[in-house]
């Protein structure tokens, strides 16, 4: 439906002939991916995997431990054979569903064995063993959904392994490094031109980690404490900056300033509360505003309408929250809300005007509705 609407608009605008539009429409129709079907299959497979884990947690009292283990291994063999056949016969959807179920089955089985024999080892050992032995088979994934699950599994394992780190300062080496590590891995896969879906999952989770982490770190301004200036933090700060530079290099020139600048800003803002010692509430708000203003500009530069709109929405919301945080009496809060609301409207109008002026051909980019004609 969306492509037909756009084709009609382009024909009306004289960009395409009727015949070209019909040919494009016919081509898209025959090459359409069954997105909803794939999504349902993925969700169904995930539900089965989670269901298996839940069944393990029920502790089947009436079945002997050896019978449980025997049945579990039998299920594993059946799944492996089914997956083998689906892959050989190139049954795409069945293959992906079985892959997710098999992946979930392995961790469920590790849990079952731990339960039967009362193995009380640290959780990270089980997770690490699970991810290591399932990585070769999960690299066969051909959908973004499966790749996303797989990368999430590794992220969860990595976070569980952080318990190995006792030192308070050293904890900061683990959590901030993870999203950047994911971006580096994504860049390496892009260079190899392999595992496109895996690369996508690494980048999505990596970027989400950087944005979420930098945003969450602004809460550290509210905490009082001594500044954490240590060698490990300085080393990490430099490493992350270098990583940001490396990630940015190789991007198209027009994106380098926006993306590179955002990464540097996110790193600086995340570390700032710890270098300053926290306890400066106002900076929490300003840090958030600076970060998400840059994300709005990033959305504009990359022509990602959803990112731009999300950033503007969150900025507006945060401005309103500032005034709830800062002011006390009803009158002051009311005046603050009026000023905050006006500021939000001005911000939105300025961004809108800026995006119209900076777009080529005078038309509003990214589907922004302006109600004005720039002809």
């Amino acid at each position, binding site marked *: 439906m969306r492509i037909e609407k756009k084709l009609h608009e382009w024909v009306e605008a004289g960009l395409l002939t009727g015949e070209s539009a019909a040919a494009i429409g016919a081509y898209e129709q025959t090459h359409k991916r069954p997105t909803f079907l794939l999504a349902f299959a993925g969700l169904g497979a995930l539900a089965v995997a989670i269901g298996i884990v839940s069944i393990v947690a029920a502790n089947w009292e009436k079945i002997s431990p050896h019978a449980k283990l025997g049945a579990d291994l039998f299920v594993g063999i059946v799944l492996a054979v089914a997956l083998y056949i689906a892959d050989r016969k190139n049954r795409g959807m069945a293959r992906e569903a079985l892959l997710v179920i098999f992946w979930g089955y392995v961790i469920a089985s590790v849990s079952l064995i731990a339960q039967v024999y*009362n193995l009380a080892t640290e959780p990270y050992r089980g997770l690490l063993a699970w991810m290591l032995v399932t990585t070769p088979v999960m690299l*066969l994934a051909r959908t973004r959904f499966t790749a996303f699950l797989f990368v999430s599994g590794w992220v969860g394992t990595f976070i569980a392994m952080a318990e190995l780190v006792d030192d308070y300062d050293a904890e900061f080496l683990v959590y901030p490094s993870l999203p950047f590590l994911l971006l580096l891995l994504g860049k390496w896969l892009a260079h190899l031109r392999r595992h496109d879906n895996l690369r996508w999952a690494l980048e999505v989770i990596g970027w989400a980690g950087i944005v979420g982490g930098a945003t969450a770190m602004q809460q550290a301004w509210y905490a009082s404490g001594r500044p954490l200036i240590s060698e490990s933090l300085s080393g990490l700060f430099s490493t992350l900056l270098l990583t940001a530079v490396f990630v940015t290099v190789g991007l198209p020139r027009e994106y380098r300033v926006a993306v590179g600048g955002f990464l540097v800003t996110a790193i600086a803002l995340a570390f700032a509360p710890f270098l300053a010692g926290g306890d400066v509430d106002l900076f929490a708000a300003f840090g958030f505003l600076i970060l998400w203003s840059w994300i709005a500009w990033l959305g504009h530069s990359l022509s990602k309408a959803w990112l731009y709109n999300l950033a503007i929405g969150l900025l507006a919301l945060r401005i309103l929250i500032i005034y709830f945080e800062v002011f006390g009496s009803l009158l002051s809060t009311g005046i603050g809300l009026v000023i905050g609301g006006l500021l939000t409207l001005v911000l939105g109008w300025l961004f809108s005007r800026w995006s119209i002026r900076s777009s080529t051909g005078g038309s509003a980019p990214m589907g922004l509705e302006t109600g004005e004609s720039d002809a």
Partner: protein
Amino acid sequence: MKPKTKALALRLLLPLLLLGYMIADAEVDLRQGETWELKIMGGDPRDLLRGHYVRFTIDWNWADDPGTCDDYANCCVCLHDEHGDRTNPRVERLDCSLAHTCDAAIRGRITSETTFDVGLDRYYVAEQLALPIERRILEGHGAVSVVVNKNRNALLKELLVDGQPWRDWGMTEKNPRP
């Protein structure tokens, strides 16, 4: 078999081999190790992923001088079988390199003056019996039988309540004698 087919088969076999190894390793330990009975105390909340279990700490029967370890990375608790039945042994801490003087030794780490963590702190039970069992353990009627393997690691074999395996105790609880 074609290389690609072989590679796929190996990828699918690897997780199954891990599971098989885990089961075999545990079974060998249970059959070959010595069984000891240790008193337990305490209890704690449950974990959704692992099922339903009771948590406990081992109530070590410390010798007058509990000893210490010079090498914290290689520390053992030394078991002395005073009664000849491997029940509630007298224990002391020492470096694992000196464990040949003990009737058995279990690897672990010193966590406080009177505790020693050997990685045994939970046992899986039926959900409906978890609370009654926890209560009995808190009242001092709990014990665990553990198997100590040649690598000086301990594996839980059975949870004992009032001297009985917890399943048997549970049956008695459901059908009390008049």
